């Protein structure tokens, strides 16, 4: 499995595939992804949202670029960079098959224990 970095670029013949289990909500001009594995919510703009919808493992980067150029009434050259950037972001977040997302370490302080071993909620956090 590859670790995504700014040096990894997708070639025109690559066919990025979204990992399974990502909830998606599509709105006009934007989309929201929910990755329960990573407990992350991703807010996507129009181009990124459309690119995500094309990550089916069968559509090449070149085809994605051409399709989005038609959707957004622009040239492939003008939208190519935005598509590439979107795919890089997806890979960096581990949302594409074959790419590992960042390792996150949730901070969990050691609990204070009472005499009977149960955890003492000394000062509940301010909600």
């Amino acid at each position, binding site marked *: 499995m590859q670790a995504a970095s700014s040096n990894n670029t997708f070639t025109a013949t690559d066919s990025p595939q979204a990992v399974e289990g990502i909830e998606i909500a599509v709105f006009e001009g934007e989309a929201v992804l929910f990755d329960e594995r990573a407990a992350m*919510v991703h807010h996507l703009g129009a181009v990124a949202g459309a690119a995500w919808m094309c990550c089916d493992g069968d559509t090449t980067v070149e085809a994605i670029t051409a399709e989005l150029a038609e959707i957004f009434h622009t040239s492939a050259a003008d939208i190519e960079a935005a598509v590439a950037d979107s795919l890089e972001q997806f890979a960096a977040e581990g949302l594409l098959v074959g790419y590992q997302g960042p390792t996150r370490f949730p901070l969990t302080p050691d609990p204070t224990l009472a005499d009977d071993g149960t955890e003492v909620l000394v000062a509940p956090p301010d*909600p």
Partner: protein
Amino acid sequence: MRADTKDTLERLRALFANWVDDANTDVPWAFSVQVDNSRQDVAGAAPADGRAQTVPGTGRGPRPVPQLHLGGRLFARSRSADEIFVALASVLGGVLASQDTTRCWLALRAFARGDKAALADVQPAVMSADRSYARHGIAELPTWVVAVEPPSSNTASATIEVPPVLSGLDWSGAALTPPAANGLSYGLAGIVGIDPKSESGDQQDGFAAGPGQQLASFGARHPSAGWFVTVRQLVETGHAAFAPDRQAARNYILTWLEPDQ
């Protein structure tokens, strides 16, 4: 807990007799209970042993309303001292109930009318003790957390549940009337937040969060598919909003909790 008078402290001890642990005296207080409106607290740090230090009131000026603080946050405020004790029991019940990690718990403010409730993702200082709600028959629920159940094939809309008050309390010993033993459920009518500030720190003019931003912002409050589905439904039905200020947020809540909504 920190109490304003010895009488309040004794009442707390009576109510929570089954929970009090005097073995560890080094635990700093987290809750502050003030129910005696005839006295004033001594200024300065509260004693760690929970005993109150007071001075007699001067008899002039407005009397403080019984209230419950959680740290620096005003959590409950009522002319009825009994309601403050109930609020404290409710908060502690929520702290205990939220240990069940199989449920979706959120620390959001909840406002209810009848069998419907709306959630507010706002800081307490912005909307605390707003008496205008009472004129509309709306009450803020004094709860630590609410459990959210997403919409399903059996329920068209999401529901929220207020956890029951802490169990094993001696209500009669504290001369109090016990509230409902079970948690209360409400249909979730909406969720409102306050517009975020711009990077410069200035409030954005004409800020209007689109549905995607609403879903992303509210959805990020809890990492569960159930909450995401819940917020998504609220967004898609127009029952999620970011308000520019507290008055606008209140108007959303009033609208969503109207009887015919």
